[in-house]
């Protein structure tokens, strides 16, 4: 029961933003310059931003796309990192050390620099470029967790039995190790998703976001620019980033095994 409760905040965030996309009045491309920076009102529940863009439409579109990006990248990282970490631990020796060291390095490294280095090759990054860059490092936490868990599992009796029966390493990995890992490693999905939402917002905030400008970071950027004139823009942006990232962290704990 508690698990379901933990999924509620994320469900709420996603449902609200989809509702905003479906029933919201304007699209984020629709500008009404005479309403620029107008305060929240009945017609515009969240008010307007730069050049009269309807904040509700902008925020809900940005939210949907941000969550989508985070889900895809986190799942890619999960799908790639888990087998990699498990395989490294099962082979032991040099491969294990190399993967473990690589995870340490990537997790501590300023991902921002890495992303920048890769993004500088394109003129203005699209959401796909951003996703690719995030995926370059997203696998590390999953691989590390899988590695640590496999270190325990590899000495378990059923794994030894599988090897004794003549199963190949790949088969043991696929049939016996990975299914036992999924629950433990999936817990990381929440925090991985949250960090991608925040990273996307941060990139858009510093002006390296998707070129359509539909991002929570772009809302924050507008809010900072008009901090004194229209503080509501800043609050809306900050609240959305916080709600999305926090709800993902909470949702991640819904998968926690053994509770």
């Amino acid at each position: 029961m508690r698990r379901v409760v933990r999924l509620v905040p994320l469900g709420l965030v996603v449902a609200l933003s989809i509702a905003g996309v479906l029933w919201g009045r304007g699209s984020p491309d629709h500008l009404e310059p005479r309403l620029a920076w107008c305060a929240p009102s009945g017609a515009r529940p969240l008010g307007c931003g730069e050049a009269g863009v309807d904040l509700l439409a902008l925020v809900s579109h940005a939210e949907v796309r941000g969550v989508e990006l985070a889900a895809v990248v986190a799942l890619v990282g999960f799908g790639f990192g888990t087998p990699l970490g498990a395989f490294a631990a099962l082979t032991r020796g040099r491969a294990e050390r190399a993967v473990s060291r690589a995870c340490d390095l990537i997790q501590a490294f300023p991902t921002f620099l890495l992303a920048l280095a890769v993004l500088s090759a394109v003129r203005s990054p699209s959401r796909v470029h951003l996703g690719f860059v995030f995926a370059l490092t997203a696998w590390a936490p999953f691989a590390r967790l899988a590695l640590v868990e496999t270190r325990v599992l590899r000495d378990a009796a059923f794994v030894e039995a599988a090897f004794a029966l003549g199963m190949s390493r790949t088969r043991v990995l696929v049939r016996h190790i990975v299914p036992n890992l999924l629950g433990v490693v999936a817990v990381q999905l929440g925090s991985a998703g949250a960090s991608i939402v925040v990273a996307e917002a941060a990139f858009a905030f510093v002006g390296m976001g998707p070129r359509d400008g539909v991002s929570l970071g772009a809302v924050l950027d507008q809010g900072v620019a008009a901090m004194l004139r229209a503080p509501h823009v800043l609050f809306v942006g900050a609240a959305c980033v916080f709600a999305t990232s926090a709800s993902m962290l909470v949702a991640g704990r819904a998968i926690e095994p053994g509770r």
Partner: protein
Amino acid sequence: MSSAFARVFEAWLVLVALASLVFFALRILPGDPALLILGDSASVTEVATLRARLHLDEPLLVQYGRFLSGIHTLDLGDSLRRPGVKATRRVLSALGPTAELAGVAVALGATLGIALAALAEGPWLGTRRRWIERAMVVVAASPLIAFAPVLTYALAARARVVPLPGDPQAGVYGLLFASALLAVPLAAQVGRTGRAALAELTRGQFLTVAAAKGATPRRVIFLHALPAASGPILTVIAAQLGALLGGAVVLERLFERWGLGTLILEAYASRDLPVLEGAVVAAGALFVLAQGGAAFAHALLDPRARP
């Protein structure tokens, strides 16, 4: 000695790998850098001149060799945006403010985090200790990008209790405010790890002995337990350095404060390749250096970590 050498070698390897990544990303991925810089409307002669100036017309390996030697001799050629100014000079002038911001943030975050950990584990607060723990969980989950602009609005723009850090007249207080913002998430992480490490240690006999000899709880925690808990605390600081540097870029942009982040974004926008390459490598060097510093501090505080 050999382990120190291995450490330096590894740090060098990381930097060369980062530099190579920037270099090849700009040259191998589709898209001619010269065209990226000049835009599609540039004439053929203009593109050819720029290609010659950036040595883009040479074979890739020759370019790579020139780039690597440039990194090591701190000479990457002139900035494209400001002709006549060496790229490395611009990078070095930006390195100071960012190092200052990050350094003060680490000092503030570590101090605050350790104080919180001691409060959450020590006997002073009674049952209210749990609130500290809960507060740290919430703060650790709040992204800097969400709360930094809001706090700036509330404290600097509305209440005007702190100056805007981008203001040239802001001085020390501006730096302290910006660093404090950057230090908040770090303090929460350090506090949580520190508290867990201290809780682990309370079962240690050496603390019971210290208490039996009449040491006050303050003495037991700060003199006996904390040095032994320095390992996890320094590890978490080292692990947060990357995030800290990313946060510094966001804050520099928020406050329009001069630093590596501002320089990197400016060089990115104007495709100033020599400056961009130099700045990314400099930021990487800052990170590697700080990590080395954390390892050194650990060895200094905890005899068990000495090689």
